[in-house]
């Protein structure tokens, strides 16, 4: 990500240290991950030490310090989904794409993330891929759904 773009985002939020998390969120959503150069730029402009930015960037779940895959798989591990078999869905996804939650595969095809409640408890267990929700999943269906992504 270019420094100019980072600067624009910083300016939009008023270049205040209190806006740090909002700025990082916007960079994350636009760029898909937080490159070190961007973090340094933000630190410089806001006068916030890099140690603090590093802590924030690793503390909150929304941030990633490595590029994410093309397809973002979110498995709901909310309680409602848990009692309806979310673990089996997660196990299946791990088997099929060979990565664990928080990871991205080597071809950058999939990133896998667990989330807490997608607000679709009526459809549990739920998996969301790139914003599309797949509900009432069984292990067999889960594997099928994954096959349809490139």
């Amino acid at each position, binding site marked *: 990500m270019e420094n100019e773009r980072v600067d624009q985002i910083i300016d939009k939020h008023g270049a205040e240290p209190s806006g740090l998390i909002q700025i990082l969120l916007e960079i994350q959503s636009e760029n898909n991950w937080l490159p070190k150069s961007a973090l340094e730029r933000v630190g410089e402009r806001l006068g916030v030490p890099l*140690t603090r930015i590093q802590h924030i960037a690793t503390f909150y779940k929304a941030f990633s310090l490595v590029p994410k895959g093309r397809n973002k798989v979110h498995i709901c591990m909310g309680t409602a989904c848990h009692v309806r078999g979310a673990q089996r869905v997660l196990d299946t996804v791990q088997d099929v794409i060979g990565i*664990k939650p928080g990871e991205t595969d080597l071809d950058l095809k999939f990133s896998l993330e667990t989330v807490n409640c997608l607000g679709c408890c009526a459809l549990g267990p739920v998996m969301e891929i790139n914003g599309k929700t797949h509900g009432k999943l069984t292990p067999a269906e889960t594997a099928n759904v994954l096959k349809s992504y490139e």
Partner: protein
Amino acid sequence: MSEIVLEIDGKKVTAREGATVLEAAASAGVRIPTLCHHEKLEPYGSCRLCTVEVEAGGRTRLVVACVYPAADGLRVRTRSDKIDRIRKLILELYLAHAPDAAGLRDLAEEYGADRDRFDKEASFCIQCGLCVRYCAEVKKKHAVGFVDRGWRKEICFVPEIAAETCWDCRECFPLCPTEALQAAYVFVEALKFPREDPPGDGAVPERS
């Protein structure tokens, strides 16, 4: 500044207004165990070893002495069966990480903590944050910080800053209750193998 009088373990103690219970106790010669406390640093309240019982307005509760403000008429108990049980278990949790730390050994003996109570995971660091806070609050260098959260939380140097400032300072090393091991180790690692990204988040896994 005005003075206040409180009672610690049955003794009347005079303290200045704004003092914490820990400071008041220290001035009266009552020792309360601590790990994350340092007089030059802001109270942090993370190790919970200084947990004591206070009674104010007819209510008794457990608080940490390093943060709780001393107040007129406050009654403090620094030892009880419950407090000792809590300290013992906290020490046992720590000993799983730093079984041989001298600072822990004496306390462990005092409270009868069993160093083998929990499975060992010798990471040495017990997250007291003394090095991180000292570097930030006293030295204002911010060369070392935390990354990640929960049990994955660890300390991490910023190599660029560390390379410039740390060799001549190293004041944080002796602060470490686990014998300076962790800060020194992470510091050397950071300089030897500077990492592009701080650890702990979504690293690309090895495919087996």
